[in-house]
């Protein structure tokens, strides 16, 4: 197994190198390198998955990486059921999206560059999932962040794209700062970063230390998985090409935070408090983002907020200890959210780049394949049975009801209702009703090529059938049994209250009610384009403007920082630092003087600083 495991990241890496070095010559044929590379990785992942299915696990070093005194770290891979599932998702969905990109990016001047980044992303993500210790995890955590930054700013000539890339980068730095500190603290506390050793020795940590470390790590997860309060970058990240939004900003990278928390669940459990924080952040984000998604008019932004909301569900699941359910939701979400994004991409492609819901409508007759698959995805997201999302979301809802506070469950249930509303709002606005686009665009609306619709079909199929492994049974669901080596099966305690069956019915009712409401508002009567997206009342304005979080950050963090930087550059540096030597403002006047006089002054300045330094050093040593 060891040979196969290392080959999985190797193929995308080779693809990256080939396209990076010879991209200029490969150019239009870049997909002949990138797509087969990922295909190989996917097949190998399947092979690894089968072995894990049979009960094998694997831990192995590639090479010793850093040795410093007692600190030793190797590039280690760990393959267990959890990473096997993640591998399948990353390479499988990744492969489909690569195929889709061949059609979507056709004719883009940066074709080879696009596939270089995309391959590199898959490589990094595979390594992140395979990582056997926190340091390797951290390194590739940063690497996927870099890919995300490069891909968001892929169309760098658009100012908004460059800005969005920058924003994603900066917001993620905030989270990663905490993550880095957490990894360091973990090393200081335990002297090792290896998963196995850390979790084996977790009892040695005091709960307080565990809480601090866990919360620092969770800060990183918040940044990467766009949870409150670090969620602002993800909607802007939609500036990137749609396949990127589907792969990185919906299906895989943003789930890294969930994966990380689930992977280190022993640490979070040791703390206890940290687990509650995770649950509440997840629950509040789930509802918060769902309300914003209700009012957005850009199709991709609706989906982006939906992603944030769904990630909130996963965190809520992890927070109440339902790890298997959370990871299961991660998997099904990867399917239906990738499907929805690719469907949206197909719609955008058909309308020459139009993303505004107000200018769509009536697409269904012209693009049957896209409509049908999008409907499947929407049903999956809304949690309608028998689609995959129903089983996974229900599992999280049930767990939160049984193991979490009632308020959390209520948040999630309302969120589920809103989810159904906003996703069907998109469906009705985009595909049904009268066309609202300009005449010339309307004439060109066409179904996308096969290379794009086939991945849509495959994903739709997965969304439809993947729920099967999550059907609850007497021994827990099949998925939970598979990952039970990592996440022990919960004991079947019944807390009384509503039975599992009643909960199931309740969530179906919530979802159906949501769909009905959307139908009443957007289908029951004719839609006036100008009425959508205009604030009707205070509440609507608040939601439409995303609760003014961006404006708040701008006012509280961005502006003061810029002002402080300007102050440092102008006043502190020129005025105070130089001024202490030269008299405030003298230097500025001095600029205007002749070169010669200025230069003489400078040497004296520097000599004076040297003298002052000497006085300070001697004084310090003398009076110490």
């Amino acid at each position, binding site marked *: 197994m060891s040979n196969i495991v290392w080959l999985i990241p190797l193929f995308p890496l080779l693809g990256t190198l080939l396209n990076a070095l010879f991209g200029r010559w490969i150019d239009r044929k870049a997909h002949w390198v990138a797509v087969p590379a990922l295909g190989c990785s996917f097949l190998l992942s399947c092979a690894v998955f089968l072995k894990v299915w049979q009960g094998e696990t694997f831990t192995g070093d590639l090479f010793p990486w850093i040795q410093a005194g007692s600190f030793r770290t190797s590039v280690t891979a760990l393959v267990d059921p959890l990473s096997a599932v993640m591998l399948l998702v990353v390479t499988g969905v990744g492969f489909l999206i690569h195929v889709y990109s061949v059609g979507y990016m056709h004719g883009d001047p940066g074709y080879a560059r696009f596939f270089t980044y995309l391959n590199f992303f898959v490589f990094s993500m595979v390594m992140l999932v395979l990582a056997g210790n926190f340091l390797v995890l951290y390194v590739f955590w940063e690497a996927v962040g870099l890919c995300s930054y490069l891909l968001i700013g892929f169309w760098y000539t658009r100012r908004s794209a460059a800005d969005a890339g920058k924003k994603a980068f900066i917001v993620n730095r905030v989270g990663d700062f905490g993550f880095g500190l957490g990894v360091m603290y973990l090393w200081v506390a335990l002297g090792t970063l290896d998963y196995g050793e850390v979790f084996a020795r977790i009892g040695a940590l005091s709960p307080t230390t565990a809480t601090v470390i866990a919360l620092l790590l969770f800060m990183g997860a918040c940044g990467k998985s766009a949870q409150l309060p670090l969620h602002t970058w993800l909607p802007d990240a939609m500036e990137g090409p749609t396949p990127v939004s589907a792969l990185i900003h919906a299906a895989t990278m943003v789930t890294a935070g969930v994966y990380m928390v689930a992977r280190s669940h022993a640490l979070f459990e040791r703390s206890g408090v940290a687990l509650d924080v995770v649950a509440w952040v997840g629950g509040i984000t789930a509802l918060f983002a769902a309300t914003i998604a209700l009012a957005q008019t850009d199709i991709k932004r609706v989906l982006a907020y939906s992603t944030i909301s769904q990630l909130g569900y996963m965190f809520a699941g992890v927070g109440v200890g339902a790890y298997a359910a959370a990871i299961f939701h991660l998997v099904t979400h990867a399917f239906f959210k990738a499907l929805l994004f690719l469907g949206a991409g197909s719609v955008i492609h058909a309308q020459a780049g139009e993303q505004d819901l107000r200018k769509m409508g009536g697409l269904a007759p012209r693009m049957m394949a896209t409509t049908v698959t999008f409907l499947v995805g929407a049903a999956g997201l809304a949690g309608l049975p028998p689609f995959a999302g129903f089983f996974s979301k229900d599992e999280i809802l049930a767990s939160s009801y049984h193991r979490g506070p009632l308020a959390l469950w209520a948040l999630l249930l309302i969120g589920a209702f809103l989810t159904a509303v906003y996703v069907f709002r998109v469906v009705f606005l985009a595909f049904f009703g009268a066309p609202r686009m300009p005449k010339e665009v309307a004439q060109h609306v066409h179904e996308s090529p096969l290379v794009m619709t086939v991945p849509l079909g495959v994903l739709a199929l997965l969304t439809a059938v993947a729920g099967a492994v999550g059907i609850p049974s007497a021994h827990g669901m099949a998925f939970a049994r598979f990952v039970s080596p990592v996440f022990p099966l919960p004991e079947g305690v019944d807390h009384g209250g509503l039975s599992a069956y009643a909960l199931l019915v309740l969530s179906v009712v919530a979802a159906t009610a949501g769909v009905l409401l959307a139908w009443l508002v957007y289908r029951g009567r004719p839609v006036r384009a100008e009425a959508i997206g205009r604030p009707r009342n205070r509440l609507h304005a608040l939601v439409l403007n995303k609760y003014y979080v961006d404006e708040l950050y701008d006012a509280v963090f961005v502006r003061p920082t810029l002002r402080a930087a300007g102050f440092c550059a102008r006043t502190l540096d020129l005025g105070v630092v130089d001024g202490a030597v030269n008299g405030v403002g003298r230097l500025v006047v001095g600029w205007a003087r002749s070169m010669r006089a200025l230069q003489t002054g*400078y040497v004296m300045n*520097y000599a004076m*600083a040297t003298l002052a330094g000497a006085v300070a*050093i001697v004084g310090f040593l003398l009076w110490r």
Partner: protein
Amino acid sequence: MDAAVRPVAPLLVVAGTAFLLLVLDLLPPRGTKRHLGVVALAGVVAALLVTVVLWGREARAFSGMVVLDGFALFFDVVICYAAALVLLLSMDYCGRHGIESGEYYVLVLFSTLGMMLMAHAADLILIFLALELMSLSLYVLAGFFRWRLTGGESAMKYFLLGAFASGFFVYGVALIYGATGSTALERIAAAAGARPPGPLLVVGLGLLLVGFGFKISSVPFHMWAPDVYEGAPTSVAALIATGSKAAGFAALLRVLLSTFKVVQPDWTALLWGVAVLTMTVGNVVAIAQSNVKRMLAYSSVAHVGYVLVGVVAGGALGAGGVLFYLLVYTFTTVGAFGVILLLERGRQEAVNLDDYGGLAESHPVLALVLALFLLSLTGMPPTAGFAGKFYLFGAAVRSGYIWLAVIAVLNSAVAAYYYLRVIVYMYMRDREGVPTGAVPSFAGRLALGIALWGVLQLGVMPAPVLNLAQAAVAPLLR
């Protein structure tokens, strides 16, 4: 090889090559001086090979004035790499700018000789002479541009301030001699260890630190650096930024670790403050620069601060980390200067940020290489800069200097801003400013290739070299 000469064998090779160049300069062909560069390079490479042959030996010669140990040899390697890369870049650069001459190569070799001697010296007088040999050659090299007004002025400035700092250094040597009756490092250590240290010794050390501080350009002795880097030929700036700093740290570490162990609490506390000041001032001021050479100058000041973190941390981890970081820093900085240098065309310099707009389109390979060097300066994995910083800050944490490590990490985060800004300009801006049409020569490409190899090799597999570095400092810590 004669036992008496063995400790200075690498130095002799460099010195001999310099003398040979002086003679060759008078012989035909007189039109071009390119062959002199090749000879100089061959000399440096030969010195590097001699170093490898001598690896693992320990010896002393000339009444104990010169030592051969792992520490000196490691620095020989760092300095020889710096010199060789600078020579390669010079062959590309000097020809284009019309400053190619025999004297240029001779002076580069002389300064290299001075640098290596600083690593080998075990006597304060010899350290001073080596320092002057290195500096004197660099003063002249810094003023090699006759057509550029700033060139002459910056060289003059460098010279005056250097002399000023040397004064402090010599005064410090005198005080230490007064306190212990010797200038030999071993005897100073013995005398200092015999009785509790008096103020004379400590103040003498303080004045030495002023002199060293100037050479490694730590705050507040850093102010010459930006002006000199800007005015000097870019190849010389690269040598000043890497070789002379490495040499300064070589002598500084040897003096501090082997001789002034008695007063370690004193100088650690002092250098703690200097380290914090140096990296903070360097990074903060670098943000405000729009001239890339000046930005690199301030960034190199900041990196001195990081290295001082390792000096403060001490021990095999800290001191070994310093050696490792200096090697990493040499590759990275020479590489970054190299790209800037290759983009200079005729008398038009590409030194403003605007000149880098859209570089990724016009020179994709150069842009990628520069981006990698900048990422290494930022300290991003998988480049060597990450590994280097990791060891330095890790050593600080290990020795209990948590706050110092936190400040250093925060500083690295600040630094990311101005390094990434260049990358953003290269990849996300349109082309404007001076049009540059550089096609690097073979020598230039070779230099960049070696530097890039170093940055990646040390970044992906740092452990073997780090072990060498830690073994190299072991003799000093005994």
